[in-house]
């Protein structure tokens, strides 16, 4: 089933972390397996925020050897960072298996990202100037508490509560997905993609990598492929309705934009609220009302509807 939510403040910064937590917590009944956030902060020009995981949450119970393995993996990642001339300005570890780096780097980040992911067990969750992508098992208040998200300031964000149907309950199959290796692009999705393997093979032939067997990852790769080829976000969303089969509603966020697309059957829900300074959307109105308790006007977008908002 899955629940998705997104919000964007026009021309202002707000407590996006706390707002997303309230929205996702209200959607917990749609997916209790894992919760994920892609929130966009101010960031500083030239610096990159990199979030990565060096093991799965379930690996932590597999014996004491994992602690050594994790240390080796972190050392390997930091060696690669050094090799590419990236200097670590700050480093945090919210959990033993997840890390957050602030890097100063002026080289090719895509090449560096590819190199880092050659390390076994390491997956970059996100990289960008503003994007911070956090996902873990549990509900929104668990994840927000663990990663200290409740005070996060930013302009926009998207989030997801997952009910695993077609792949495993683990962090690698949790949403949102970062559009590897392109900075600041993330995707959340509710639905099923029926031409997944055809599209995945096509994307793999074009040189893109897949980390999971989750069909939603395809949307991230597909969007990244289009944007990298100079297609505007709105055109990419519109094109996906023709090229991707199945039932889906998905949200895409970039550094300063938030977009949505709904499939041709309008089979997956989305409720929209628009005002002059805030746009909020979620699978159910109850999530929007978690941050806007007063009476508001909302509506359901129709089939094949595509919208893009600017921060």
């Amino acid at each position, binding site marked *: 089933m899955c629940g998705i939510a997104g919000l964007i403040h026009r021309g202002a910064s707000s407590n996006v972390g706390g707002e997303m937590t309230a929205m996702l917590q209200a959607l917990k009944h749609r997916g209790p397996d894992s919760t994920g956030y892609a929130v966009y902060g101010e960031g500083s020009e030239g610096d990159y925020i990199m979030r990565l995981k060096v093991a799965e949450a379930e690996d932590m119970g597999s014996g004491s050897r994992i602690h050594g393995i994790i240390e080796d993996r972190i050392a390997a990642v930091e060696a690669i960072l050094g090799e590419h001339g990236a200097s670590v300005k700050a480093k945090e570890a919210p959990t033993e298996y997840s890390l957050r780096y602030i890097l100063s780097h002026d080289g090719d980040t895509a090449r560096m990202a590819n190199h880092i992911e050659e390390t076994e067990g390491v997956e970059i969750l996100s990289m960008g100037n503003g994007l911070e992508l956090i996902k873990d098992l549990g509900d929104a208040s668990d994840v927000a508490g663990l990663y200290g998200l409740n005070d996060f300031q930013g302009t926009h964000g998207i989030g997801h509560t997952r009910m695993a149907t077609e792949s495993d309950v683990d962090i690698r199959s949790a949403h949102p997905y970062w559009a590897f290796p392109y900075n600041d692009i993330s995707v959340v999705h509710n639905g099923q993609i029926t031409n997944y393997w055809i599209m995945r093979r096509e994307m793999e032939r074009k040189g893109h990598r897949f980390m999971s067997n989750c069909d939603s990852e395809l949307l991230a790769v597909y969007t990244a492929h289009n944007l990298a080829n100079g297609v505007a976000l709105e055109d990419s969303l519109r094109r996906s309705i023709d090229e991707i089969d199945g039932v889906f509603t998905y949200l895409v966020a970039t550094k300063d934009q938030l977009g949505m697309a709904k499939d*041709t*059957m*309008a089979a997956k*829900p989305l*409720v929209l609220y628009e005002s002059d300074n805030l746009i909020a959307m979620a699978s*159910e*109105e*109850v*999530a*929007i*009302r978690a941050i806007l*308790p007063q*009476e*508001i*006007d*909302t*509506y*359901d977008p*129709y*089939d094949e509807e595509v919208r893009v908002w600017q921060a």
Partner: protein
Amino acid sequence: MASVTDAELKEMTQEERVKALGMTTEQLTGKSMYIEFDPDATERFEYPWAPSVDFNKRTEVDCDGKTTTEVNNQIRALMAEGYGTIVLQNPRGMHSLGVGILSKLNLIIDGSTGYFSTGLIDGPNVRITGRVGWSCGENMMAGTVVVEKNAGSTFGAAIRGGDLVCRGSVGSRTGIDMKGGTILVGGDTGALSGFMMQRGRMVVCGNAGKNLGDSMYDGTIYVGGDIQSCGVDAVEAELTDLDKAWLTRKLTQYGLMPDKGVDHFTKIVAGKQLWNYDNLEPNEKKLIL
């Protein structure tokens, strides 16, 4: 039939023999002759166990901090006490509010509800001042539901009777599988509205999305605006004076009458090209129907 012996057949008259061998072509009776509403059948107006309520006795329920089950149980408890007008405050998008009310009641929901609001009802008059989510009024048997703002998809799915009204726009698959009653929409409707509709009437004052009335068996859809496309076997029919009179009466009743009247409405009915039941032999028909 196999149990009829030759000796028994010899005893019968010609008419009885034909019947025993299953060779009659008599007209089908039973559910196919279903009467939607019979004003003379007064004893069927209420269930014998329905609480006796007084519409002038009014109370309010605050939904904040309560679960759906708690609110719905409280409605039942208040009806048992004789309250005939119940106002739900602060619903804030809660799901399944006011479902399964099977007797008369004035229910006012002051705000917006989530999925499945006031489904499976048989009798109450409901007014919702906000918006409703998916599947409002699902499978309702009788009564009225009036939604002041927009509604989500599958509005009035499998409705069998009563009037379901949305003053704003509704989502996709409105009146899917409807088997009776009336759905009135003041604004637009999405794709696949009236999908597999079997009986009843749907009125859309605004535009309709693609595949309107797809695979409809029977029933009527009236659309005031543009129709993006009609579905399989949904065809346009002539808008008769009887239709216009009915539309005028219904739309006026709920204050949805367009300024330019009802002459511009398009009437969509089943083309009946998918009706293959009558290709069956009388014996097969007996087995299937």
